[in-house]
């Protein structure tokens, strides 16, 4: 399945990755060759094969619904770019 210039820009937007037209052209060629290699999968008959999500077929383990963590907000916010009163600061979203 070929990939188009518009697909690259769409993926970049979905991934919130800043990409200008020139960057998209640069990646288009690489991504096209990667997907061409990936397309070898299509030649294999996988009818009736269950998709494998986990190498040991494990399922999600559950635990008791109990508080086990202590509040470390100040500590964890030390590595944040901008915080105020315990909140993360970002550009205004709602006017």
């Amino acid at each position, binding site marked *: 399945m070929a990939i188009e210039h518009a697909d690259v820009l769409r993926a970049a937007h*979905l*991934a919130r990755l*800043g990409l200008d037209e020139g960057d998209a052209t640069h990646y288009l060629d690489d991504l096209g060759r990667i997907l061409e*290699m990936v397309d070898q999968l299509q030649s294999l008959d996988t009818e009736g094969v269950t*998709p494998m999500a986990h190498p040991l077929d494990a399922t999600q383990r559950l*635990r008791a619904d109990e508080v086990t963590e202590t509040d470390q907000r100040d500590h964890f916010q030390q590595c*944040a770019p901008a915080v105020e009163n315990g909140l993360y600061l*970002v550009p205004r979203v709602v006017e």
Partner: protein
Amino acid sequence: MHDKTLTELATGLSAGEFSSRELTQELLGRIDRLDGRLNSFISVTAKPALSAADRADATRADGQAGPLNGLPLALKDIFCTRGVRTSCGSRMLDNFVAPYDATIVEKLSEAGTVSLGKTNMDEFAMGSSNENSFYGPVKNPWDPSAVPGGSSGGSAAAVAAGLVPAAMGTDTGGSIRQPAAFCGITGLKPTYGRVSRYGMIAYASSLDQAGPMARSAADCALLLGAMAGHDGRDSTSVARGVPDYQSELDAPLNGLKIGLPVEYFGDGLDPAVEAAVREAVQVYESLGATVREVSLPHTHYAIPAYYVIAPAEASSNLSRFDGVRFGHRCEAPTDLIDLYKRSRAEGFGDEVKRRILIGTHTLSEGFFDAYYKKAQQVRRLIRQDFLDAFEEVDVLMGPASPTPAFDLGANKDPVSMYLQDIYTIAVNLAGIPGISVPAGFAGNRPVGLQILGTHFAEAQLLGVAHQFQQNTDWHLRRPAFAEESA
């Protein structure tokens, strides 16, 4: 002291021949003098290392020393270390000082080991040459014009160069085994889930696994025992007892059934690598093992399946780097979307962007079934190949990589770089363990023999590797670089 194994250093420490502080100082000095030529470390943590060494010496004086007490090592810069920059080889995390320790960091520290610092790596563990690091490429100590392999290239180079006796790595598609092979050291990728992933920055969560890189299989056994085990903070870590990995080191090889996958000896395999691997297999035959050919018929679908599954998981995992809670943030964002887009565009390198784009594209509406679902179906067939093979033989052997270490800059094209991982990637898809051990040279560059076992067969693999090292001296060879006068 710098070219001894962990096992030898442990004996020296316990006999009082030297202290952990003396050993730590000696190695910090070597890093200071020699690593400028290798670039194997991103951060050297001399002060905390000396404090840890003093604590270990005090523990020993109190008669409380365990087997790893006072032994130095290094950590791939993918493991969160409290109070120390944890960059993952990326500009995105260049300013990130981790607020907590990864589980294996905690366990190794509790065992009394002394971390000398954080090793260089391909950005977010995406690469096979260590050329994708924000901190620059690492040189191979055997030949400075060659790559050390990747993504755990700094860990492999540091051990090979005698800067540290062991280092922790991670392996998502071969990132422990291939650099171990390229640098002439021993590296083990455990079974998926054997070692906790908590605090190990995620690349592809259904494939990632941490493991030891050292100078012998016996040293890897010592380290794995301290790293392995269930962790309530990683729901994919396996709730299963940790065996004594030293217990099978001396198991005789008589009657061991070795399978050679025909697909691992085909087109593209360097003749000198093949010759070294076949000679290693003959050593096993001379020690009483039997050898037969087996087939892993879906081998050639492993790289295509991996380059759907791993980028898909990566595109999801790396969405956490948003410029809001930690890591790089762009200057003067105009709105929230601009903040996300520019922070990520500036923070991530080329290969990481490629994989995020591939993953986002293949998971997007209209493409999911053809790519992701198909790849997961193929993944099951690949695992079944291995399970079928292990019905017939005990272990599989072959090359860790089709070539010895290639030249820096030799693989500019991403697809040709991906194809280098043909013998390692299927192992991660299947979740089985694998080890690479030094098995000779192709010219002046080391060759790695890869040994694979079924799920949770680490003790057996370590024993099979150890017996080889009892009967050969490839693992004792050191590059000229390791000599102080070089």
